[in-house]
């Protein structure tokens, strides 16, 4: 089934795909919901065409998926770490083999350019390899106790974990969550964003082909209601969620009822601080990397760009020049660098922020408008020209709220003390960046910024080896890195007495 969709991808063109296959997956195969009701259209962002009518999963479907996941978990958790690793490495290999076709399908559903999507798929199989490598190394501790007893700890899986993905990195997020979960011996039921349902089911098929027990990685499609069913289901041990802060709060509330573990990767309004002693060329490149990947729809983007006053004119000149030159267009073309935003409402929302910014006194140096590419088939697409806002102030809406679009807000600053205070003055805390040549400043600033990641002299060069996650309302828990193992397993301490019990009574 997957072969039929993926194999058509080599000839794929923007504006041609229609998907009729069922996109749910459990018990080892694609599944249709019981009733074809409450269908919502899924759009191709580059054209505005309908790709698929998505019927959400209801209570029965969610329960069926979770039951199949549970029986898979019972088998999978009995395997040794090395045996799980072997299967995961095979899944990584298959993904790598099919990377171009998967990337194209991702582009058609998400709207990001093919160059980026290929990187996303590469990150996905690298993540699988990383956690496959850890599967065989999970150790506990041995602790000597006084008087002839000792304790040891075992790391055990949680059971069935739920993953709820976002629309900006559909395929990658399904792996970021499933790889550590599976490495630890868990099963996962994954719910993609209803706007981007196409590629997670490909991952489910690849896992099956690699040899996981049927049901180990399930996909249930749907929106808020389906998500809610997952959060309330008694057999779900843990929820890992990527999305907005308001939804994250709801997830926490719902999970509280079952005392379920939760990790949240939410939004951000991350600061990028550019000091006058930076390498200006790199700082400009960094600002672009921090704002314009995936049409600006990236949680950790450095969307508040603080530039030290002395270098503001040369910085702006260069950054505006390069922003204007960004090739916006058909995302399936190799030469495109920015595709379409995920949906009409998201596009309108981003445009609304620009309008509001202008009202509040910001100056649009370039972009910030709906963009109609010359290719006629793209005329219904949700394109926006990337925007640089000058003359911004800390109290503007565009500076305080997450826009989730290609809008860079530039703000001047004078001193280090001042800019750090302003950078931290937000309820978010996902990422941050600093450009400076000075060794003391670089590390001093990194120490003082209240964010889960601090980039020095680069931005958004994330890697699976390093932990990623937020401070404050940007979330808690971590993804990537070794530490994520702690979020997908539980610790049992076993105490062994080698002598007698104290005759206390």
């Amino acid at each position, binding site marked *: 089934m997957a072969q039929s969709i993926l194999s058509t991808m080599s000839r794929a063109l923007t504006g041609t795909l229609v998907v009729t296959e069922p996109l749910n997956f459990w018990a080892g195969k694609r599944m249709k919901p019981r009733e074809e009701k409450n269908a919502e259209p899924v759009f191709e962002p580059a054209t505005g065409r309908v790709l698929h009518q998505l019927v959400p999963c209801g209570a029965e479907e969610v329960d069926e998926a979770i039951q199949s996941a549970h029986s898979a978990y019972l088998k999978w958790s009995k395997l*040794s770490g090395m045996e799980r690793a072997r299967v995961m490495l095979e899944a990584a290999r298959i993904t790598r083999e099919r990377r171009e076709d998967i990337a194209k399908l991702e582009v058609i559903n998400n709207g990001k350019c093919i160059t980026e999507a290929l990187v996303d798929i590469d990150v996905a199989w690298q993540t699988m390899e990383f956690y496959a490598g850890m599967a065989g190394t999970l150790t*506990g*501790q041995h602790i000597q106790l006084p008087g002839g007893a000792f304790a040891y700890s075992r790391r055990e899986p949680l059971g069935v974990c739920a993953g709820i993905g976002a629309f900006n990195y559909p395929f990658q997020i399904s792996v970021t969550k499933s790889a550590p979960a599976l490495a630890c011996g868990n099963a996962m039921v994954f719910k993609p964003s209803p706007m981007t349902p196409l590629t997670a089911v490909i991952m489910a098929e690849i896992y099956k082909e690699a040899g996981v027990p049927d049901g180990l990685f399930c996909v249930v499609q749907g929106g808020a209601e389906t998500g809610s069913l997952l959060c309330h289901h008694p057999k779900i041990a843990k929820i890992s969620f990527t999305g907005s802060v308001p939804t994250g709060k709801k997830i926490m509330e719902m999970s509280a009822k079952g005392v379920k573990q939760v990790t949240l990767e939410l939004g951000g309004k991350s600061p990028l601080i550019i000091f006058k002693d930076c390498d200006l060329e790199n700082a400009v490149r960094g600002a672009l990397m921090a704002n314009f990947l995936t049409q600006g729809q990236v949680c950790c983007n450095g969307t508040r760009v603080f530039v030290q006053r002395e270098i503001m004119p040369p910085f702006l000149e260069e950054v505006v020049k390069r922003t204007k030159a960004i090739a916006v267009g058909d995302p399936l073309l190799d030469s495109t660098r920015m595709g379409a935003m995920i949906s009409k409402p998201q596009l309108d929302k981003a445009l609304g922020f620009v309008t509001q910014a202008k009202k509040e006194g910001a100056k649009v140096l370039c972009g910030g408008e709906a963009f109609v590419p010359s290719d006629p088939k793209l005329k219904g697409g949700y394109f926006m020209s990337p925007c640089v806002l000058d003359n911004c102030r800390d109290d503007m809406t565009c500076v305080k709220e997450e826009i989730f679009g290609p809008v860079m807000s530039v703000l001047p600053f004078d001193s280090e003390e001042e800019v750090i205070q302003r950078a931290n003055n937000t309820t978010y805390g996902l990422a941050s960046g600093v450009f400076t*040549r*000075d060794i003391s400043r670089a590390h001093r600033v990194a120490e003082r910024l209240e964010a889960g990641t601090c980039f*020095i002299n680069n931005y958004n060069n994330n890697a699976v080896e390093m932990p990623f996650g937020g401070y404050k309302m940007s979330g808690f828990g971590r993804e990537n890195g070794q530490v994520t193992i702690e979020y997908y397993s539980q610790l049992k301490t076993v105490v062994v007495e080698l002598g007698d019990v104290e005759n206390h009574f």
Partner: protein
Amino acid sequence: MEEFIQAESKDQGKTVTFARAVDIPRSAQNFRFFASSVLHHTTECSQMDHMGCLNYTVRCPVGVAGLISPWNLPLYLLTWKIAPAIATGNTVVAKPSEMTSVTAWMMCKLMEEAGVPPGVVNIVFGTGSRAGDALVAHPDVPLISFTGSTATAQRITERSAPYCKKLSLELGGKNPAIIFADADLEQCIETTVRSSFSNQGEICLCTSRIYVERSIYSEFLEKFVAAARKWKTGDPSDPSNHNGALISKEHLEKVRSFVALAKSEGAVIHCGEGVDHLDLPEPNKSGYFMPPTVISGISDCSRVMQEEIFGPVTCICPFDTEDEAVVRGNGVRYGLSATVWSRDVGRVHRLAQRLQAGLVWTNCWLVRDLNLPFGGMKHSGVGREGGKDSYHFFTEVKSITIKH
């Protein structure tokens, strides 16, 4: 404390100030650090549920640890070995340098007072060739921790080889300082004078080769020599002195011979030996004193730039590129420590990662987190000591598999 300070200064020649600031407090801290860190080590446990097996590791003391410590930081380096050895459950036979045995002897009385059971810490006093040799070749001493010269280490390795002993060898260094034009010059000079001349240059971590980026070379040389001249040498009990006496007549002659060699090779001696007169009080006139000596115009292949001098002598040379500085910095058979001076974040990390040294300090010197591994690369030694590393060195690990 004060008795120890006075005794160490008198026995070794270092200033009372240095003994008070460094030697004796560190000796006490060594015991405190290892007493605490031994509470926090855990070993591993892995499960093989599919085979019904549980694996875990335990670490056990080895038995009698043989410890040999040098004359430059006598009590400091002796306690750095004794503390982790006994903290992990071993007993100890230690041989301090025959040149500096006083504080070791005084420590024995304190051990008794502290309640260390008799036989746990044993100190034998004598020479390397007799007492040291007997310890190293003893079949019931499975482990030797030695700090001293590379030449003696070779002897120890040969003598202990038939018994497959575990060895931790902390040897010499020929440590470079690499100074870029964007360094904070004032801070750099102040610290590099300290790193060159502290304890009369008798620390394995002392800077003995200074490479300076050409554009600031003349300015650096001038300011460094002026600062070196302010580093006073004289009666160790005088608190205004930075340096006291070198350890012995023989050692003083050896260090002087390197300066003479440099001179014979056409190098320039800017200050110190043979250039400046040391004004010593009458009682100290036959002591083993030498003023801080700065040499330039010396070739990288000179013995003066290749061999450890272990005295208050340092050489300064210019360099042009980062790559050149790395190659020349690494161009000796030693690899103990190095310092890098630059304010550029990229450069500092790059240099630190490229230098072949067990310890790299950037924009500082001798900052010690006792948790981290301490030791040298290449001919500067074998093995590491420090929180976890000493724990691993002074114990044997056993892997246990329980099939259930």
